[in-house]
């Protein structure tokens, strides 16, 4: 695997293989000595054009646990504001003999463009691009679900499981990569959102769509329920006017006590973070026994170690 740009690029077998490696990486993280020499001598740049301390720290931890040298570069505060282009930034990194570039960018497709450009021959890992993809988030979600509901043994997928994603699907890269990955792993995916927060074209996605959360919970009971972050500013006219008020959103689509009680006993509550407590999820749900939100974060490091291992080792393919 040279790059990880989209969950859609992972077929069933490759996705399972990544999760298997992630489980092995997780096993090493229970040891006293957590550091592995695997990527010694490799340089990984965390190129974050958009703030995300959580994701950046997760990648940084993963790279350091594998003994890579890590450089954090957040052009937002430096050269981009002076007008340096994506191209020049990447050319600069290339000149420094970077092996891997972890890219977070507000523009959909920026990691794809870097990977397919002549600007660098480094491996590119998408750490979230615009409203497109966030493949490592979906991998850590899948790892969490697989481990909790299937046992986490090597070779397992998510077949027979139902995953429900609720909220702002339109603007969510987590939802897009989730639908791609979970369905590739054999799960059934259900999306729940007001039509304003679903993209035109969603009918072609391999997912069932509901506009009514209570009906969805009754008719397609989930094994894993994933609540997406909703940005409050989306309700204003300037923000697009996607919903009338936070109160109405919370009433219609928030995970509250009655909805929590309606879940099957084994069902998991998930959230990619950061949460808007009281909007898409109540504290009762976020902190309850079903919540695996903290576990998701822990699994994030293992998944990113696996992805770094799989993209940065291996002989260079001819011409790559």
């Amino acid at each position, binding site marked *: 695997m040279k790059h990880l740009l989209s969950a*859609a690029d992972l077929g069933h077998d490759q996705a399972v293989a990544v999760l298997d490696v992630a489980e092995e990486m997780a096993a090493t993280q229970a040891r006293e000595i957590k550091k592995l020499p695997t990527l010694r001598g490799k340089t990984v740049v965390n190129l974050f054009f958009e703030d995300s301390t959580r994701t950046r720290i997760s990648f940084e931890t993963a790279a350091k646990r594998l003994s890579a040298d890590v450089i954090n570069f957040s052009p937002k505060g430096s050269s981009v504001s002076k007008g340096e*282009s*994506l*191209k020049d930034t990447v050319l600069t990194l290339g000149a420094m003999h970077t092996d891997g570039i972890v890219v977070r*960018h*507000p*523009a*959909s*497709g*920026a990691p*794809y*463009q870097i990977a*397919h450009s002549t600007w660098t021959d480094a491996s590119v890992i998408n750490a979230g*691009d*615009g*409203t*497109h*993809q966030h493949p490592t988030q979906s991998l850590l979600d899948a790892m969490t679900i697989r481990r909790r509901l299937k046992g986490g043994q090597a070779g397992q997928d998510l077949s027979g499981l139902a995953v429900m994603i609720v909220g702002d699907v339109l603007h969510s*890269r987590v939802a*897009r990569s989730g639908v791609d990955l979970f369905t590739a792993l054999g799960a059934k995916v259900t999306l729940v959102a007001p039509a304003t927060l679903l*993209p*035109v*074209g*969603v*009918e*072609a*996605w391999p997912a069932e769509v509901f506009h009514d959360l209570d009906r969805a919970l009754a008719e397609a009971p989930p094994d894993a329920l994933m609540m997406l972050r909703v940005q409050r500013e989306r309700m204003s006219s300037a923000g697009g006017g996607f919903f009338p008020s936070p109160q109405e959103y919370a009433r219609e689509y928030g995970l509250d006590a009655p909805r929590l009680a309606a879940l099957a006993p084994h069902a998991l509550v998930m959230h990619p973070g950061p949460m808007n407590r009281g909007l898409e999820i109540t504290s009762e749900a976020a902190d309850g026994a079903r919540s695996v939100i903290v576990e998701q974060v822990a699994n994030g490091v293992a998944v990113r170690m696996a992805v770094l291992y799989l993209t940065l080792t291996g002989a260079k393919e001819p011409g790559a």
Partner: protein
Amino acid sequence: MSYLIKGAALPSGRRADIRIAGGALAEVGGPLTAGPGEAVVDAEGLVALPGLVDIHTHLREPGREDAETVLSGSRAAAAGGYTCVHAMANTNPVADTAGVVEQVWRLGRAAGYVDVRPVGAVSVGLQGLHLAELAAMARSAAQVRVFSDDGQCVWDPVLMRRALEYVKGFGAVVAQHAQEPRLTEGAQMHEGVVSSQVGLAGWPAVAEESIIARDVLLAEHVGSRLHVCHVSTAGSVEIIRWAKARRIDVTAEVTPHHLLLTDERARTYNPVFKVNPPLRSSDDAEAVRAALADGTLDVVGTDHAPHPREAKDCEWAAAAFGMTGLETALPIVHQLMVETGRMTWQDVAAAMSARPALIGRVADQGRPLAAGEPANLTLFDPSARWTVEPERLQTASGNTPVAGWELRGRTVATFWAGRATVLEGEVV
């Protein structure tokens, strides 16, 4: 200089020799014998078309000479078989005064490759607030007959109504860039399945169709003439078909890229495929091909939109809209419409020469190839094969969407007002 073109196929299919002398077609028929000092052009196997007329070209000068100049754009036009182009008004300064349109017109004359017909802006500074001095532009040396805020939609229905009414005084036309601005804020590509997957903000078809629907009704109401730029959706075609059935005086254009390409191209995130209006679905592309074939869409306009490399060498969302087209339009129409039997060469001559000349009220262009007519014609070799290499094109910009493609058919010679601007495939 006089020329004798031997053995060309006229649009009708009839073989003829053509003598060019004194800026006119002296004789068409034959066989003709070369006179003393007359250059003979062997046109065996070539199709002779009246010089092409582009109703929609961006020459960028003044203001963005890094993308294109009137000279480089004129050479590109000639290389593509054109003898007349309409230069859009979104220059810097905007072509919204007699002074600017006359400057562009004079630059065209100085370049000397095609008839450069400036388009005047509808509103001052393309701001969509106040009518520009349309009459002054119409009565200037440039004799502007097409007004457009292209790049921007004349969104205000009152301003659009006034423009349609006002241009009646000098027989001009308003060419609308149909794009409802609120529905397309931040829009990056066609809104549909592909946009939902690649995560780029959608430009819905309805944003084009709603403006066209409004405009044809306005044109009917005030009894004026409307031209719709770059029609891209099946719904727009239906509205125009309906308007024509009602005898509303509307004409419409389609670009080569909307005939050829679809939104699937956005999956590459290559900004060369970012264009406004966006590449649409395959159903839309088929609808505009069918509409061009049946005449619902009157003309092919290139919307040739050169951009410097840095405007495309960036994130999709940050890239400029637009692609070049002058040098590839005729081969694309040939492949898509003629080879497939959907259009004859007479249809092509109408859609790419006669009708655009009529829309732009260009008297000496788009004329039939007959004795006594102005010597504007192009010779096209339908059997030629060539690979599009951006750096070898005449346009100063490299943003062709068909870079690396092998195209079928190529302009061999172009004559404008009796002068050869292209001979043996080379601009002269």
